[in-house]
């Protein structure tokens, strides 16, 4: 092996240069993961501000203007800054090791696609300190609230979104190129681990829809600065057009977030069941089916906008169909556990919680797909509860599971099982205290994005806020656990780490060397 990575012993300059100029997939994976965790903490802090203000009726801590900035920034930072980069980080670390490749196919682009991200978020968050404040029109930024009626800082927001989009597109191209060209001999498509499969499909979704988002924000830019009227009714435009374009991006976007999470869980459950994944090929087909359906259901986010009834019926039926492939996946996970030999380490606990809570979110999703009932649910806390069950208990839980699962392989040290389990139970209970009551709030009539509410909603909001602080605390524990493991964890050299773990990444030494698979492995 030519050279190892620079460490602190080589001096600060060398050490910093290593991270800035790195083209190593493991380094870039690490950068992505730390960046996303930083964004997760920041987005979480925004959520804490929201829940603190909603602890009681009335405006106590902040003004409605700032409240709207917080809801918007919370959504944007969590979706684009925390969850997406976290899974890109996992992909960077694991895909080459899983398919027996020495690195990603396009290492320099890999460096670029990471390093433009901090700038995108610096631009986005700097607006909070500017005159006019940050974006205040919700993460869905519906026009004309985000165009004619937006603060001037919206231009920074647009620029930031463009950079994030470029980063995502580059990252996706890299993943597609890697998987198509760099698989070890004998690693056929239908032998790839599920995590790799879900990521390839996700990458295709990203390449397809990020340009649509770029188009939407460019049209906004034109409306704001250059006198066009794409979304301005007074100039002959149509505000509803914005929603169609946004959700044509936005619906695949939510699957972009959840598919890699499916992949992670499909790796972890077989390991701790000590039994191969049940129905591998149906898992692949189900993932592809979900990805396809994601392109043809977007207007179910717009049932109350006044579409013709034929449109409503079509989008309702198409949306209901998603339940079929999603059900297949859930049944497969449970059948993988059936007649296994189960143990419940932290990654497995998070994965089981994922299956239960994600499915719960899927149930409410099915209820939301029924247009007539959606007329009552739409834009209430019922929706907020629904998408936090799939986004947090789905994507975030699976990301946490992934970190605990692969951390020993990455750094050659074992985390403290008791502390991991403690974090799990606080997160699991806190999560449910936060979001379960939000179903009741929504059904009882509390709309989302409300800075203040009537007295009849006071009790459940207080419960929800208490749960949120608890869930927030669990994340601090997570940070502590990870740092403690890297610094002071019990060293381990077992390549397999977990008794039931299967796959190429577990044939490598622990901790994984800086360069792996310089010569392709031989598959059994």
């Amino acid at each position: 092996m030519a050279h190892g990575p620079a460490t602190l012993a080589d001096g600060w300059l060398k050490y910093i240069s290593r991270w800035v100029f790195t083209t190593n997939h493991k380094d870039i994976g690490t950068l992505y993961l730390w960046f996303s965790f930083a964004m997760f903490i920041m987005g979480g802090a925004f959520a804490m501000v929201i829940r603190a203000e909603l602890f009681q009726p009335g405006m106590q801590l902040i003004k409605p203007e700032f409240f709207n900035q917080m809801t918007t920034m919370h959504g944007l930072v969590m979706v684009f800054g925390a969850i997406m980069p976290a899974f890109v980080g996992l992909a960077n670390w694991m895909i080459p090791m899983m398919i027996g490749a020495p690195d990603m196919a396009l290492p320099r682009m890999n460096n670029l696609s990471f390093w433009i991200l901090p700038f995108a978020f610096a631009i986005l968050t700097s607006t909070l300190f500017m005159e006019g404040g940050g974006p205040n029109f919700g993460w869905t930024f519906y026009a004309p609230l985000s165009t004619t009626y937006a603060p001037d800082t919206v231009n920074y927001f647009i620029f930031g979104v463009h950079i994030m989009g470029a980063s995502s597109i580059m990252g996706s191209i890299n993943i597609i190129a890697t998987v198509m060209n760099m698989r070890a001999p004998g690693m056929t498509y239908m032998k790839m681990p599920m995590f790799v499969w879900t990521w390839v499909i996700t990458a295709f979704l990203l390449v397809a829809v990020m340009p649509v988002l770029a188009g939407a924000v460019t049209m906004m830019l034109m409306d704001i600065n250059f006198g066009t009227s794409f979304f301005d009714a007074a100039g002959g435009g149509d505000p509803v057009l914005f929603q169609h374009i946004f959700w044509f991006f936005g619906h695949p976007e939510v699957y972009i977030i959840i598919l890699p999470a499916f992949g992670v869980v499909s790796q972890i459950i077989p390991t701790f069941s000590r039994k191969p994944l049940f129905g591998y090929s149906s898992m692949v087909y189900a993932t592809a089916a979900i990805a396809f359906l994601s392109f043809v259901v977007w207007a179910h986010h717009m049932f109350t906008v006044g579409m013709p009834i034929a449109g409503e019926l079509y989008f309702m039926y198409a949306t209901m169909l998603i339940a079929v492939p999603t059900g297949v996946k859930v049944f497969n996970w449970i059948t993988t556990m059936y007649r296994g030999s189960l143990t419940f380490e932290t990654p497995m606990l998070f994965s089981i919680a994922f299956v239960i809570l994600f499915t719960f979110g899927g149930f409410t999703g099915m209820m939301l797909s029924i247009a007539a009932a959606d007329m009552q649910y739409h834009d209430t806390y019922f929706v907020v509860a629904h998408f936090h069950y799939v986004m947090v208990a789905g994507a975030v839980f699976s990301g946490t599971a992934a970190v605990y699962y692969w951390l020993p392989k990455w750094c050659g040290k074992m985390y403290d099982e008791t502390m991991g389990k403690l974090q799990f139970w606080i997160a699991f209970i806190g999560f449910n205290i936060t979001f379960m009551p939000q179903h009741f709030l929504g059904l009882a009539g509390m709309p989302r994005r409300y800075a203040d509410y009537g007295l009849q909603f006071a009790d459940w909001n207080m419960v929800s806020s208490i749960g949120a602080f608890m869930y927030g605390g669990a994340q601090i524990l997570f940070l502590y656990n990870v740092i403690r493991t890297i610094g002071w964890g019990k060293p381990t050299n077992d390549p397999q780490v977990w008794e039931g773990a299967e796959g190429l990444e577990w044939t490598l030494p622990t901790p994984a060397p800086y360069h792996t698979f310089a010569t392709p492995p031989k598959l059994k």
Partner: protein
Amino acid sequence: MLKRAQALFLGLLGPVVALATAGNVSAESATRQLNMPQGVTEVSQAAYDIHMIMMWICTVIGVAVFGFMFYVMYAHRKSRGAVAANFHEHHVVELIWTIVPALILIVMAIPATTALLKVYDTENADIDIKVTGYQWKWQYEYIGEGVKFMSELRTSQDEIYGRAPKGEHYLREVTQPLVIPTGKKVRFLITGNDVIHSWWVPDFGVKRDAVPGLFTAAWAKTDIPGTYVGECTELCGIGHAFMPVVVEVKPEAEYNEWLAAKKEEAAVYASTIGKEWTFDELMVRGEEVYERSCAGCHQSDGKGIAGVFPALKDSPIALGAKEGHIAVLINGVPGTSMQSFADQLSEVDIAAVVHYERNAWDNNVGDLTQPIDVLNYKQGQ
């Protein structure tokens, strides 16, 4: 405190109780409400029914699937000596759990379609009411009756900011509710003036976005008089949480009386537009209008919010010619959040608020703005 804890405890037991006693919960026990209201119209009943069907189907599937999962987690754990089997495929089973959910979906699609057809049945209405969303209030116009008014939040800023105790109807009270009769099919034609709002009355099962440049239709018909409260459900700026919908359903005779009174009010107003107002009269009325319609953005102290909403204190418009000041209120400022108030405020209110802005917060212009000035400006246009 103890009472509150007790309430919370009861609330936590709620899901069980809700399923057992699922149904309409009256307004008095609104704090305890956990489920969707059944409401008072065919549409809200249809939404409630399909909601309950879906909830039960999901509950049954959930209990079966998770029940099996928990059994597996108990029975097949390594600590109980379970040895892993090695199967990883079973085509028949996989086919069954693809086809059976698909069949369940087809069955569910039937009531879902029927319910939606009901929502869209807006033909043959007895009364048409145009609902327009403004930042941050609703305007109701009885089409063909010449009656039109604004409905704004009545809760005071003091209650919102904790300087006064919150009333029983906190954020659920408006200056003038919408009034409709029992037993008549009322069609709502909903649109927006500035950004997108959404008009929601849960007890009617009516939620429609109020989109600028677009009319959407919804309908309600009920035999149960009462006051029904709803909300704006599309993020529309800083006043999003502060523009409730309140609808009063009255027996037909009472409704007709109310409508006649409204028409008379309009006629009386038209005849008094020429009245000369004194400086102080204008200041009092102007402050009232300002707090209701302007302070949300420009703030009570007239200083605005830097970078978003301009200050009126010491502003060249407020200190300049009266006609220019009136023009801003009548026309709005295109391309900004400053909308036209020509349809929102009466001539008297516009005159009063212009007068107030020119003479409050040390903007001591000292002139008088009369309703006739506003009318002259409008007619001169």
